[in-house]
């Protein structure tokens, strides 16, 4: 009998708690985000956002390619509202398929035209350039210099020593490939890459993997974004040096966008606005990303885009024709 009373009591208690819940519920829904940043870094920004706005966030970390695949697969029933991070080429590619929802963020500065889609389908909240990262012990041992140009990468001393991401699995890999296309035109770029391929040790799935691998001596040279090179290589204490190709290099604009059919529209807008705030942009220091808000402070050692030779990178064309360029690469290189 006592047992029965206890059970009834428990049931009633649970029911009360369940019924009482809505009254104490916060005004905002929980924001669902797909983050194409590393878990640790994404968590760092998102925790700051939660603290600053009181909006709860749940996120999944994926490569930007994966995010695109998920958004497309889920287009009839989107699971997330915001796509946070990843090269704008990938955002452009997905936007071209009509899967993103334009939103012009409220900023206290003018967002340069290269930092957003014409209709604000995506918005760029940081930038970074493609660079080379080289193991200094390897250089010392072989008494050579770090590569200073794309042409240097073809030198025999780097035979089987270069690593980078597949252009079809990573925004980093694709930006490097797109840079060469834009510099030489597709046909010549393919010929050139066949030569480079002889010096490639292996391609990796993720864009940043080659940095620590160069640091560990698993390979000698990596091709990656400058901010990643600093945050995950030089800054971690690996024996690495960063250099940039003298012919000019490509760069990425890190994108944030709202997914079409987003369920938490208001929360998503607040999040995108927050990404451009001075508070958020100051956080990029920790991971050496270059902020787009002029008021934000830049990390020590980070290379500003104005310091290096950039090509006139056409992110829109490279984004829209990504499938074509990637297929051309795979057909020729065969990997």
């Amino acid at each position, binding site marked *: 009998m006592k047992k029965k009373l206890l059970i009834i009591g428990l049931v009633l208690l649970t029911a009360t708690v369940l019924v009482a819940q809505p009254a104490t519920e916060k005004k905002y829904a929980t924001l*669902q*985000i*797909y983050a194409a940043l*590393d*878990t*640790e870094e994404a*968590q760092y920004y998102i925790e700051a956002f939660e603290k600053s706005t009181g909006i709860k966030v*749940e*996120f*999944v*970390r*994926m*490569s930007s*390619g*994966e995010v*695109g*695949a998920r958004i*497309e*697969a*889920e287009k*009839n*029933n989107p*699971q*997330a509202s915001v796509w946070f991070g990843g090269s704008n080429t990938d955002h452009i590619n997905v936007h071209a398929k009509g899967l993103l929802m334009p939103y012009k963020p409220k900023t206290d500065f003018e967002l340069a035209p290269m930092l957003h889609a014409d209709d604000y389908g995506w918005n760029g909240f940081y930038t970074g350039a493609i660079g080379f990262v080289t193991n200094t012990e390897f250089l010392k041992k072989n008494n050579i210099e770090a590569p200073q140009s794309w042409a240097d990468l073809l030198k025999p001393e780097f035979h089987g020593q270069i690593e980078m991401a*597949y252009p*079809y*699995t*990573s925004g980093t890999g694709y930006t490097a490939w797109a840079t060469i296309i834009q510099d030489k035109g597709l046909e010549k770029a393919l010929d050139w890459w066949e030569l480079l391929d002889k010096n490639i*040790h*292996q*391609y990796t*799935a*993720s864009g*940043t*993997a080659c*940095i*620590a*691998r160069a*640091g*560990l*001596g*698993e390979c000698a040279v990596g091709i990656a974004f400058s901010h990643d090179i600093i945050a*995950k290589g030089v800054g*971690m*204490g*690996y*024996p690495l040096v960063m250099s940039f190709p003298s012919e000019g290099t490509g760069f990425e604009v890190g994108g944030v966008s709202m997914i079409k059919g987003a369920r938490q529209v208001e929360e998503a807008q607040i999040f995108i606005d927050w990404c451009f705030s001075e508070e958020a942009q100051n956080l990029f220091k920790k991971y050496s990303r270059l902020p787009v808000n002029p008021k934000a402070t830049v990390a020590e050692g980070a290379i500003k885009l104005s310091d290096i030779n950039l090509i006139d990178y056409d992110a829109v064309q490279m984004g829209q024709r990504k*499938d074509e360029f*990637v297929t051309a690469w*795979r*057909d020729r290189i*065969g*990997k």
Partner: protein
Amino acid sequence: MKQHSKSRIQQINEIKKLIREPFLFISILVIFYLLIVFVIFPIFQVFKTSFMVDGHFTLKNYRDVLRQSYYIRPLFNSILLGVLVATIGTFVGFVFAYAITRTPMRGKGIFRLIATFPMVSPPFVVALACILLFGRAGIFAGLLGNIYGLTGLTIVETIAYAPTAFLALIGVLQAIDPSLEEAAMDCGASRGKVFSTIILPLALPGIVSAWLLVFIQSLADFGTPMILSGNYQVLSVQAYLQITGMFDLARGSTLAILLLLPTVIAFYLQKYLLSKKSYVTVTGKPTSATIKNLEWYIKYPVYAMCLIFAFIVLLFYGMVVWGSFQKLWGVDSTLTLRNYVQMWKIGKKYIKDSLLLSFIVTPITGVLGMFIAYLISRKQFVGRNLMEFSSMLTFAVPGTVVGIGYILAFNNPSFFMPVTLTGTSIIIIALLIFRNLPVGIRNGVAAIEQIDPSIEEASIDLGADSGVTFRKVTLPMITPAFFSGLANCFVRSMTAISAIIFVVSGRWNFITVAVLGFVDNSQYAQAAAMSLLLISIVLLALGVIQIITNRLGKGMQSFSIIEQ
């Protein structure tokens, strides 16, 4: 399973019995519904997607895939790797099984434990250890040349899957009555002759079956090649990259089907071989081999090989422990606990989710598996073979294929499943239950078939219905097998990666996915710390279940849970 020859009248009686038992009837319907939704439907979706372009039926995807070297080479790579791993793994497994069943080797218990240990960790932990040992920044840097590729994959998968062969073969060797060998020896046959004319022919179906099991596991392995494949591309990873990197569901599904075919063929070949029991000597209970003066030239090479393999296993796992305390792997070897702190900070949620979901999945899988085992081995009903086939199917289908099938099947409401499951915990729970169900069923069938059906028949004749009979008669007798199924399911849930990686979400994530993320960033020390935590949790759970089993199994034969 048991084919009783029976008359028409008996058959009619059976149908009558079924109708008289609505509980049984309804449960059969429910199980069929679940199997269709969570096993058949997702795999069907993969097939369908591979034959579709813009909503039309076409063979274009297959033409594309078969024409391009970069699609077709991974298929051959996967098969070559599978053949190598299966061959070496089966050899290692056989040597171990032989040493344990046929030699007076000392410390058999320890060897047994070491030989089965890799089963409680995800295979990619071995891959991680391989990098720590033989990578360019490793302890034995350069010793094996470039480990990113076929060499590394073969070593790692052999360590990870030789235990499968070992467990399959120890059963086979135990089933061969040693008195046969003794008789041959007494008649003057040499050791070599006994081996080649008695042991080998008798064990051959078992050896081939072990070979096929390892082959399937290697083909389906995802975590190891994800970390170690270098330029040696394999199919499971390529199918994943095709979908996640190229947004290409159609060709990703096509690659998945290419991966599916050899595994399913191997799986049913293996089942067919096992069903041919005629090879095994059934002369009462297997007696432990009486070992009389085994020649030194057999003994010592066998011992040496066991020692070497045991040493390699210990070396690999030891390396993970050592690596987890290093400040920055390869650069700063100061010992520190920082990795554990960092791992905990980032990994808390992953660990919590993995544990919670595995705890939900394990009992459901155990009960459902046992119940299906009971149905297919004790009950006659229409579609029984179909039930057996479909419930065993997920065991043969590589995780990558299942994962792709789940995202294709449950992203949108459908006829079978009126609500969307993507992003929920349900999709992960369902995936784990139906991935692990075959193990539970196999355990259950084996246990139930040891029970004489006449005991149950007596109960039914005395007026109890199927439910009561199952609860009061069958269940108590199969309890040890049930708990061993639980242990197995928990281990498999906690270490799952290949299918899970497709269905994790912001709300629900998995510890194995987190480890892979660390490895991706070359944060080997943190990856090692998290792997160790994972292994510790699994060992702890195994220990608890073993204690429970021993308590319940008092008076029954002693029972080791890992080995079922």
